[in-house]
């Protein structure tokens, strides 16, 4: 249960940063936090009490004693995509800073109509 609470705390803290903060780097950090929260949630959903990691490193291990490997494989993909998204978002922040000389998103007036 504590894992659900941790995952949702991360998601909500990230969403708060995206909604309230005006510094663009903090907004990107918020997106990254949401990403981590979703990853923890997925892995927690795949966990089964008393079972071990899905690696047959020992002949005594049986498939019945292992947790679901599918969420772990999905999260492995999601982490890499998250890195790509964060890197691209920070690149756009760098370009916006070059152009407007500010990181404050409310000072970039062209976004408003």
């Amino acid at each position, binding site marked *: 249960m504590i894992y659900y609470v941790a995952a*949702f705390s991360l998601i909500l803290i990230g969403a708060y940063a995206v909604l309230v903060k005006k510094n663009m780097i903090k907004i990107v950090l918020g997106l990254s936090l949401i990403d981590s929260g979703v990853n923890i949630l997925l892995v927690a959903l795949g966990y089964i009490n008393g079972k071990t990691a899905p690696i047959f490193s020992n002949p005594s291990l049986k498939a019945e004693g292992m947790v679901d490997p599918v969420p772990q494989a999905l999260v492995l993909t999601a982490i890499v995509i998250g890195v790509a998204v964060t890197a691209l978002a920070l690149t756009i922040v760098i370009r916006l800073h070059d152009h407007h000389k500010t990181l404050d998103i409310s000072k970039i007036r062209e976004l408003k109509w």
Partner: protein
Amino acid sequence: MRKAIAVIFLGIIGYYLLATFFNIPFGIARVLDGVGFKYLAMGVPDTGAANVVTSIVVNFRGFDTLGEVTVLFLAATGMGALLHHREPMKRSRQNASIIVKAGARILFPLIIILGAYVFVHGHLTPGGGFQGGAIIASGFLLMFMSYRSYHVNHVVISRVESLAGSTFVIIGLFGLVYGHSFLANVLPLGTVNTLFSAGVIPLIYIAVGFKVGSELTGLLDTMLKTVK
């Protein structure tokens, strides 16, 4: 005002999310004969990889991993395009202290070896190409941070990256020619739990490790060069 509205809004969302998820019991097997158990039962006989997560990522869903590598490549390309400057920029950051410099010089080869170990043993232990590549890139980041004059050759990096990416696709095409499908495991599976086992999985993960390592290193270098 904005903060208050955001907190109330997120509080409502959080309450309903938690209320819903408390109905989903934690830590019990939900799907008794789902795809996960199929993978656990068939992973070792079908692919020869002791690590079932690796056999899913590289073999059962190998095409998906090719797409994932492509997304990473697109991000690196997009960064290169957005941060392109006519005149090459010089990095001008503070010089690190002598302790950091000496420590970085000792740690750098060890970090590279750890990264190589992680991606070579991806089919036996937790880890794999993506994790190993990230470790290698973190070693290069340590060097970028310690030595202001340290630089990597972008031509070499992009060559390594393209070569590793092509290796992945060529191994996949071998599966199409000699096996039954793209990325089929055409090499002998060997004994489970030894280094030379699992057919094409270690080869693909080594290629992915080189690709991710060089890509992230290039990405860090591009970003650090824009700092004036």
